[in-house]
């Protein structure tokens, strides 16, 4: 899903690109995205801010507080699930994607976001998981059809 597609799917009226050095801000239904970052980065920042929209409560700006870090983490996981769903990995596999550039283009995200998403799945599922008629291995990332 690209940044533009995510904006449309969010159905949120208040997403603004602003002249700011902070990459993304969320406040009471309003999302601000820095206009100084590329569209792949905007995509994952927007996904995280949408994660805040759906899951965060309160002022969590002070990340020295554990509870605030926890809410930040929940929003980030929401973003991983949104932009890199397991079904998406299978779709990528079906298009015969073979390297990192192609897969990050496919999902329209930066490298580190992609790695972190895979790491997140590895943390919850372990080395592999099943999805539809496929097995997804997380390290190294590979997908096989089950016959």
């Amino acid at each position, binding site marked *: 899903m690209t940044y533009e597609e995510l904006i449309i799917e969010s159905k949120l009226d*208040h997403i*603004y690109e*602003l002249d*700011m*050095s*902070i*990459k*993304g*801000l*969320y*406040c*009471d*239904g*309003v999302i*601000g995205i820095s206009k100084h970052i590329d569209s792949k980065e905007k995509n994952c*920042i927007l996904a*995280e*801010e949408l994660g*805040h929209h759906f899951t*965060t*409560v*309160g*002022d*969590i*700006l002070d*990340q*020295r507080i554990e509870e605030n870090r926890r*809410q*930040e983490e929940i*929003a980030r996981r929401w973003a991983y699930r949104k932009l890199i769903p397991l079904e998406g990995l299978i779709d990528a596999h079906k298009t015969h994607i073979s390297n990192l550039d192609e897969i990050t283009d496919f999902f329209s995200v930066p490298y580190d976001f992609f790695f972190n998403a895979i790491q997140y799945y590895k943390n919850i599922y372990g080395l592999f998981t099943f999805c539809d008629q496929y097995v997804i291995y997380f390290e190294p990332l590979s997908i096989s059809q089950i016959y």
Partner: protein
Amino acid sequence: MKVNKRIKFLREKLDMTQEQLAEKTGYKTRSAINKIEAGLRDINQSQIVSFAKALNVTPSYLMGWEEREEEIETIAAHHDSYEWTEEELDEIEKFKEFVKMKRNQK
């Protein structure tokens, strides 16, 4: 803000646990409160009243019918370190003002 989020917000503001809120509203377990706050379970009219009482607000405030939400409730930022620079804090303040302005336009 939806009713479920408002319940969570108010409960946390009052420094109340889910167990304590369950007790005050007549639920047996905290998992019921957890589901309500997560929006997985709806509450009916009489429960709105008991939640409002437990959270020390009016039922209409809990429903979000009173537009007196002048202050910022939820705010989060994408940030890679724990410390904010002066410039960033300034941007956050500007963003808050921007959000309040948008709210008043509604």
